[in-house]
């Protein structure tokens, strides 16, 4: 509770400072030579707030937000599922992983955002070019974590399951998958953010809908307040998606010991 109060205090102080330094005429300008220059460059929290409220009040934001969220969620799911599948496959097959290793390394080192224009050509300016970009970003994060997670499965646990009569399929289901799950969830938290990056960067490069498109339009007219409003809406929804992943994680990982929990004898 005390923690929440402090967290809110940090937020309040930041907003207050922002307000103080940007509102024209509130304090004498000390860096810019004009009174409203700070507001021009950094926006004003009050106006940002009302822009946001207006978006939701008029309903204008919903179609854009819906498009961006759809792109994000699709990119996230396709990327995560394929990362999980390929990660399991390569981790369990030594030949395949040895063959694919240089390619995986190459694709991972590549700054994949440069693929965005190509995806725009391949998939058009609709949602799929954004989804494709999100997938390339999400895939590798999940893939590497699954790969690592499966490789680190305790050999004793595997030997024990084999002695208890587990088939290959049963080993995968009862040992590899649950064992890799904590790694997978750690990566999914990063993946949510990357799926958003994919969607918004894609929208920047060419789109007619989406929060990224709204921000781009506002930048075109030097409407900094709208840009900030867009950033805040995106951040809020990224937090919501991350919280959803957290809820699913907690419901699936009930077996994990909590640090504060004492051992019952």
């Amino acid at each position, binding site marked *: 509770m005390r923690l929440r109060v402090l967290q809110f205090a940090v937020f309040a102080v930041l907003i207050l400072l922002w307000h103080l330094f940007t509102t024209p005429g509130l304090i004498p300008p000390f860096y810019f030579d004009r009174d409203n220059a700070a507001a021009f460059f950094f926006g004003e929290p009050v106006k940002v707030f009302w822009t946001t409220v207006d978006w939701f009040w008029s309903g204008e934001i919903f179609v854009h937000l819906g498009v961006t969220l759809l792109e994000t969620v699709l990119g996230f799911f396709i990327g995560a599922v394929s990362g999980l599948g390929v990660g399991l496959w390569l981790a369990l097959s030594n030949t395949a992983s040895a063959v694919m290793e240089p390619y995986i390394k190459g694709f991972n080192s590549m700054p994949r955002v440069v693929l965005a224009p190509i995806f725009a050509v391949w998939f058009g300016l609709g949602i799929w070019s954004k989804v494709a970009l999100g997938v390339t970003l999400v895939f590798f994060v999940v893939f590497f974590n699954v790969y690592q997670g499966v490789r680190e499965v*305790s050999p*004793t*646990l595997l*030997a*024990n*399951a*084999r*002695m*208890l*009569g*587990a*088939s290959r399929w*049963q080993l995968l289901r*009862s*040992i590899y998958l*649950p*064992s890799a*799950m904590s790694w997978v969830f750690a990566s999914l938290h990063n993946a949510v953010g990357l799926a958003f990056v994919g969607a918004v960067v894609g929208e920047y490069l060419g789109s007619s809908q989406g929060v990224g498109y709204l921000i781009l339009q506002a930048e075109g007219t030097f409407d900094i307040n709208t840009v900030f409003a867009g950033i805040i809406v995106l951040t809020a929804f990224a937090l919501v998606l991350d919280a959803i992943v957290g809820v699913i994680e907690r419901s699936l*990982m009930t*077996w*994990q*010991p909590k640090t504060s*929990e004492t*051992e*019952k*004898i």
Partner: protein
Amino acid sequence: MATSGAPALALEDVTCRFAGRDGGAPYTAVASTTLRVAAGEFVSVVGPTGCGKSTLLNVAAGLLAPSSGVVDIYGERLVAANGVNRRAGYMFQADALMPWRTGIDNVIAGLEFRGVSRAEARRQGDDWLRRVGLAGFGDRYPHQMSGGMRKRLALAQTLILSPDILLMDEPFSALDVQTRQLMENELLALWAEDRKSVLFITHDLEEAIALSDRVVVLSAGPGTHPIGDFRIDLPRPRDVSEIRMTPAFLALHKEIWSAMKEEVLKAYQQQKVA
């Protein structure tokens, strides 16, 4: 215990050589070892630390193919490439419970792998939890249990499949002395019910004598091989904490220890050098 027919478990002239690290010389863990366990016999293998005891057990389990030599299970050849020893249960030294499964789900894992229906598996699982003294703890996760409880759980997990051969790799070495003696007595009681063949690995000579029909002493590594085979004709049923005080026990201990001492010192010297 003389029995007719093939022994339950026979390691014949087994050698295990491992490739050296970083292209170094290959390391021979076990050299030309022959070890037989008759049906219903409790055999302990003792030896200094790091002498390849676990390697022998992994060979017997079919988890590891020996470089040369063969393993026969009731007269049938065991080929590691064809899968593990299906007639054996293996209790590992380290914790081998699945942390994401509750106690009961861990116990019935083997039945589940064999396709036994859930209701039937649960019925047997509850019965085994009761037999190892964990009735009512079935819905706890392993991390919510003490070390002793986890060992009981592992014992139930292995015994529920009713294996003909029980392979045990220092199963109680991580427990404190009191818990350990309790577990040893429980193991003997469970064993007495249906007399499985047991191959029990330990570095603790007292534990070996107290539990076994026969104690095999291994030499220090590398190239571990048996250097002594002692029959333990102490009366059963035994209480492991009381039997340690009897003169017969002490005499056996003295005899076997004199055979073992040199090897333990040798192993100690090697560890100091390494």
